[in-house]
């Protein structure tokens, strides 16, 4: 297999061909977006005012994630553990918690360490994947609910249990699948594990960008006026179609899927991304905020950027595992 190999005395990096082209494609899109961010705001300042900071943030995101994927599964797990922590902190800052729950919030942060630690725990368990599957949804849940009842304030108990568990599942467990996917043996995918993860991230982010672009170009009919008033049918369907086509035609380069399997995932993954997006919008609306924080200029918070991935990542992982990957 061809590709790019860079080696020195103490290091060697091998990029499979598809991944190399993927990175170059992202680079081309970033340059295109940067040029657009220089031209469009000058023509219609009000319509495109957020494009400049948005593009600058995209560069930072691309360099961080691209760097981690090249560096390997350990670096990817550490980066996404950090991302999960920031997302969970955003969520638990905005969601209602009680004064007595500070310890529970600390326990919730601790699940980040355990959840991502399990990705490293090959020697500890016969199959660390099975432990990963049950840790956050079952055992973190049991420990935290028990701890919360031990603290003893019953008023608002059930609501707080639900809120903390929602945060852990969405921000830690679901996002953790991205890092877990990096443990796929290289031989099981045409562009290695990094290729699988790159494809997931590329597809979900492309879906967001495609929805944004189709919406700005043609958007008329609101799709969820009460939840996310900027979303339109034109944007959502245009984005879905664009992403599904790109997924289907690029799948052979990045995934071991058959054409039928690729077609199923091409339909499911962009739809999951869309529902992740509007679910987060519903929560933000309930909490009375527009953005989850101001960490990423032009985008809002980590959760604002991650919203579609929180749904797309577990589905992508499980469908791949079911269809094609022996390891999981």
């Amino acid at each position: 297999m061809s590709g790019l190999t860079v080696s020195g005395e103490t290091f060697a990096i091998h990029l499979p061909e598809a991944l190399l082209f993927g990175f170059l494609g992202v680079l081309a899109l970033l340059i295109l977006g940067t040029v657009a961010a220089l031209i469009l705001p000058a023509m219609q300042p009000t319509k495109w005012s957020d494009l400049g900071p948005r593009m600058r943030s995209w560069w930072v995101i691309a360099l961080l994630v691209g760097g981690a994927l090249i560096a390997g599964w350990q670096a990817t797990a550490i980066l996404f553990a950090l991302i999960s922590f920031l997302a969970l902190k955003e969520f638990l800052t905005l969601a209602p918690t009680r004064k007595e729950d500070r310890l529970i919030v600390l326990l919730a942060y601790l699940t980040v360490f355990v959840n991502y630690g399990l990705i490293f725990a090959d020697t500890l368990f016969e199959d660390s994947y099975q432990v990963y599957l049950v840790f956050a949804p079952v055992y973190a849940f049991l420990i935290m609910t028990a701890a919360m009842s031990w603290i003893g304030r019953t008023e608002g108990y059930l609501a707080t249990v639900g809120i903390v568990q929602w945060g852990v599942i969405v921000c830690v467990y679901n996002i953790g699948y991205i890092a877990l996917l990096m443990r796929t043996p290289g031989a099981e995918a045409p562009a290695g594990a990094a290729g699988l993860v790159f494809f997931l991230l590329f597809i979900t982010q492309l879906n967001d960008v495609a929805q944004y672009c189709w919406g700005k170009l043609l958007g008329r009919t609101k799709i969820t006026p009460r939840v996310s008033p900027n979303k339109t049918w034109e944007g959502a369907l245009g984005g879905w179609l664009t992403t599904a086509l790109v997924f289907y035609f690029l799948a052979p380069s990045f995934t071991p899927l058959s054409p039928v399997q690729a077609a199923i995932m091409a339909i499911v993954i962009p739809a999951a991304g869309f529902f992740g997006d509007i679910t987060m919008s519903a929560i933000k609306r309930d909490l009375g905020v527009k953005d989850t924080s101001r960490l990423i200029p032009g985008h809002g918070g980590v959760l604002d950027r991650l919203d579609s991935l929180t749904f797309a990542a577990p589905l992508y992982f499980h469908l791949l595992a079911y269809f094609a990957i022996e390891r999981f």
Partner: protein
Amino acid sequence: MLQTLRRYALMFVVRPIARLLFGLDVIGAEKLPRDGPAIVAANHNSHVDTIVLLCLFPARLLHKVRPVAAADHFDKGGFGSWFSRNIIGIIPIKRGAASRHEDVLAGAKQALARGEILVVFPEGSRGAPEEMTRFKTGVARLVEYMPAAPVTPVYLQGAGRSLPKDSRLLVPFNTTAVVGDHLTWNGSHHGFIDELRTRIEALKAEAPPLRWR
């Protein structure tokens, strides 16, 4: 030498850690003073407040920013005292026990005269988490002494949840700082602190809703 150490410690150690743990969202950063002498006045709920306010300033101003802090709490000797004075850069102020003839604000006045930016908490004490108490007149006496110094009101939210008074357990939560338009000396001690308090309370509306029961 110590100034350089302070600047680098704040830029490369304190600020990254604070950003990781407390997020440090700012609304209206452009309204912060760009040079001294100036005063920044905020509500006070946690030791973390001081760190949050310090981190709002750009690197080139950091050496001028001086939090005014209670001597009985931060200047008790040992490493804590060294760290508070030299890295956080506090101006220690005596609470309560000061004698009648001593000007407790002398250190703060000298700092204003040197053109520094004072960070003050007019409540004087941290109080109950995420609640504002009565303002003391110290800040008004400082602007009376130096009317050229604008007083910038800042509303801080969230730090009281991360590290409330009487708690040793630090729990990370995002903080938000809302910066308002500055005030100048209006000739009355109580008039000034009332106006300052009203302004800080009004800024609360711009922060994300706080749901903490």
